[in-house]
């Protein structure tokens, strides 16, 4: 505890917590939609092509954080333009991802001192973020949350009930592209904590655990955010206390949350799923 209090005096520790807080808020909300829209593969593609973007930016002497964002955003736009319809989307994602990652490999090869940077982007580097990176992340996070607040209701409608949503005039296709962009921003943020390869631990697991805990959409988002906060801030704390990488703890914590939600808490909280004794018999 004392050790932790001493650590909190350091700038890099404060930066890590500040960034972690924003990232957890964004990922908590976004992961609910990622799970409901079944887009884990898309998340992976955005992250890996974010890596390509970061590698390209480093090669050009620019900020890897912005490179990540640029890479994932461009990918989101490309996937959105090619495959807004659900069927065949995975194929488009796969085709895009393969090419982009190849490009990333090229960038690494061209940049001689890349090994450390590459490791950081692949496995997370939250304790290494600078004050200016935190500022960028807070800005990206704020814009993302604002965008989510604007599209929240029609996006929910289009996610769970696309056919009726379209009939009611909801721009389902456009919202699909907007959500890809939101996802791209969230991915660029989450990569800072857990890295490209472990991205799903923040982009899927909180949302997946949350739906085990409540049948109410609003509460599911709240649970998802709470779980993302616990994993991110808890992971950072444990990493500071032990010197092991943050991603180790974030992935362990989020997996534990999922197991707990699925097998321990969930069955109790959702035991009252059918208040009616035998409604199936009703005409």
């Amino acid at each position: 505890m004392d050790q932790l209090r001493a650590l909190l005096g350091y700038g890099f520790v404060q930066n890590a917590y500040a960034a972690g807080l924003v990232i957890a808020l964004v990922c908590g909300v976004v992961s609910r939609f990622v799970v409901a829209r079944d887009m884990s593969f898309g998340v992976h593609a955005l992250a890996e092509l974010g890596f390509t973007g970061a590698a390209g930016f480093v090669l050009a002497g620019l900020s890897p954080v912005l490179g990540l964002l640029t890479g994932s955003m461009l990918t989101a736009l490309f996937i959105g333009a090619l495959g807004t319809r659900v069927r065949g989307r995975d194929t488009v994602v796969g085709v895009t991802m393969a090419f982009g990652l190849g490009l990333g490999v090229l960038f690494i090869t061209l940049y001689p001192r890349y090994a450390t940077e590459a490791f950081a982007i692949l496995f997370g580097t939250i304790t290494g973020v600078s004050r200016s990176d935190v500022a960028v992340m807070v800005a990206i996070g704020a814009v993302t949350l604002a965008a989510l607040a604007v599209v929240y209701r029609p996006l929910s409608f289009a996610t769970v009930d696309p056919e009726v949503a379209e009939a009611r005039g909801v721009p389902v296709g456009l919202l699909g592209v907007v959500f890809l962009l939101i996802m791209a921003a969230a991915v660029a943020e989450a990569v800072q904590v857990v890295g490209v390869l472990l991205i799903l631990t923040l982009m899927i697991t909180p949302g997946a655990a949350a739906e085990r805990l409540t049948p109410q959409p609003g509460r599911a988002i709240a649970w998802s955010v709470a779980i993302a906060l616990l994993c991110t801030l808890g992971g950072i704390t444990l990493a500071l206390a032990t010197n092991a990488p943050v991603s180790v703890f974030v992935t362990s914590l989020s997996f534990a949350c999922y197991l707990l939600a699925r097998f321990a808490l969930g069955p109790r909280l959702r035991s009252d799923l059918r208040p009616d004794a035998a409604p199936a018999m009703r005409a």
Partner: protein
Amino acid sequence: MTAAIRFEHVTLGYGERTIWSDLSLEVPPGAFTAIIGPNGSGKTSLLRAVLGLVSPSAGRVEVLGHEPRRGDPEIGYVPQHSAFDRDLPLRGRDLVRFGIDGHRWGIPLGDGAVGARVDRAIASVAASSYARAPIGRLSGGEQQRLRVAQSLVGEPRILLCDEPLANLDLRHQQGITELIARWRRDAHGTVLFVTHDVNPVLEVVDAVLFVVNGRWAAGTPAEVLTSQRLTELYGSHIDVVNVHGRILVVGESTPSGFNVEEPHHMPERLVDHEAPR
């Protein structure tokens, strides 16, 4: 009196493919019209034209005296039953509420007057006892009742139904049909009802539109559902048989391999239909 829905010489197609051409139809307010035809005959496209989601390549569609508008609050829509994920955090209430404000931007805050409207709509389809359970845990018939509540909660004047009875057992088919027929009567609403089997709605329809291979025939069931009319329409020999008050459309396989018997299944359905009578 203006027609609720009017099609004037409408041709609809995607790219090179024409789905149907020169369709003219006038649906008076308060009418229950069944749209029948085999799969792929463009029944859903007809509803999409009324919703303003597709534009005809020729002719004119009119809804309540104006051009079709996307998101028209005067139109309610009931889709085919499709299962929700069992663990989706969504209750029947939430689904019904989308019918009021699901298209609006922002975050829904509180319940207030909207909540009372949602509750009334749910009560009107007798779904109150399970409206707070996760939607994925409900039976197909229960989900469809909530779908009807969702489509009516915005107090539309026209109800478009796209195969709302598909995948339901007979008792639920009757229940859903009764709900829609009752709304039509009480609210003097207009119903366009797409179905591949006319029998569940035969007692409540005023008119049928039969669409086959880009051609169509419209009129009262007695006018359209005859061996002669359907033989002309299909371009091959068709028998329309009345068995115990059920209409069966039976045809031989056509050269294209299409079997007309398909839309009005014969043997299984006979057994089905006799049971509750």
